[in-house]
């Protein structure tokens, strides 16, 4: 079976990563920010799998499992905090969370 060149995989991962980063910067809704972070993290996971397949090692996929676990932790904690914030502010707009300045 023909191998996909590694660079293609890395370029795809980098594109996803940048899309996610742009989402974090541009979006104002916390849920969408969390989604964008998820895209960034999974882009890194994809890069790990691509790298692992280049060296024919399981390490890349192993890291991806760690990353999945971490992403789940982050999302669950993130949503719990978002619920709290929504109770207080009645909005999901991150710009309204601006009680601290300086």
């Amino acid at each position, binding site marked *: 079976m023909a191998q996909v060149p590694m660079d293609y995989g890395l370029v795809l991962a980098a594109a996803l*990563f940048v899309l996610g980063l742009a989402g974090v910067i541009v979006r104002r809704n916390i849920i969408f920010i969390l989604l964008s972070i998820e895209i960034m993290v999974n882009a890194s996971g994809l890069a*790990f799998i691509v790298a692992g397949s280049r*060296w024919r090692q399981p390490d890349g996929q192993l*890291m991806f499992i*760690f990353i999945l676990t971490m992403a789940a*932790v982050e999302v669950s*904690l993130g949503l719990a*905090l978002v619920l709290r914030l929504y109770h207080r*502010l009645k909005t999901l707009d991150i710009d309204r969370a601006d009680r601290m300045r*300086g």
Partner: protein
Amino acid sequence: MSGADFVGILPLAILAAAAVLVLLVLSVYRSHLLTCILTLLSLAAAAASLPVAASVGPRGVTILLISDGYALFYTGIILAATFSVTVLSYIFLRSRPGRREELYLLLLLAALGAAVLVFSSHFASLFLGLELLSSSLFVLIAYPRGILNVEAGIKYLILASVSTAFLLFGMSLVYAQLGTMEFARIAAAGRGAGGAILIAGLGLLAVGLAFKLALVPFHMWAPDIYQGAPAPVTAFVASVSKVGAFGVLLRFFRLAGVQGHGHLFLMFTLIAIASMFGGNLLALLQGNVRRLLAYSSISHLGYLLVAFLASGALSVTAVTFYLLAYTATIVAAFGVAVLVEGNGAAGAIADYRGLFWRRPWTAVVMAGALFSLAGIPLTAGFIGKFYLIGAGAGSSLWLLVLALVISSGIGVYYYLRLIVIMYLRPEQTAPETAPAPWSGSLILGALFLAILWLGVYPAPWIDMIQRNALLK
């Protein structure tokens, strides 16, 4: 894994077991005091296991962890700081209603994460340690569930997750180029290689860690977190998480050799200068003690980079000593914040005005901490800065040394201004303050003595640090 391997990571095992134990105890019997004492005992047990772990010598425990003098010394700093933070948390939570016990569980987990970081010798353990630390911190910061706490928690969650994504992407690029994730083998494989992807990977990795260390331009979160988090947690963020992240940064880039990669060296130099000046200049504008300390911590991490970039044996000694001195100092400063701050806005300057006339001893501790941050002789900060400059000058990093000297000169101004405010006559409407609890006085007294000891007679500490220096 042999028996000796398990002995080598005994401190980590004790911390992990303690977290499980506290969790089980909480499920049957809830008691604030008992949980606190249990946490303190397990931290003491982990500290007592450090010499035992040292006795099996420097050894790699699987490819993931390495148990050497360097890791054990940093773990010692982490445990001591967590011990102080635990006592401060008890004082902080005493008068607050609601569920309080889980905070100790999270403190233990976060300390475990920081310790795993300094033990790590592989990307996987670095990542796991960092996540264990940050995930516990998300909850710790938002713990009292006030609006400021939740806001700070969300901000930290978003920025820490983004920085983790940077770190992971950097790791994957390094792995794609070199085919290994072990620090030692990366160093060996990367010595000659200088591909753009490798440099980009190392750069992204450095950015990820710089976020955790709040270095300019990745410092935006620090002031909000320092202000919004409960005071003992702020002490934890300012000390333990910095020690853990800097410990692994130093270990990794020492092995990989920053000097060998010109671009990386330049990047760290720019970050260092920006952090020193950015932190100190922005601190001048702050009207809030917590935010002031946040910007000051940004500049202190910048100072640390000077010794980090220096080569030679003095460099690691200087970084380790400075981290030790800085930890004692900043925990003392936030310990004062725990005792002093009323129910008003966190870090409001009014809480500190005339402190000397209301609580002379607390004010003396705060003054000692501020002198140490400013680097006045006879305090830990002075000796620390002396070593940093020595390390920088030893490697002819004149630009960085000059930036350090000038920016810390600027820094003296706002530290002294705060001291002056503490010695002003109090206003009529000065907030009433209850007498400090004895546990708080004890911890603050111990930290104050530590600051003086490190500043007056640092020889035994320097000796110990040099015996536990990072092995190449």
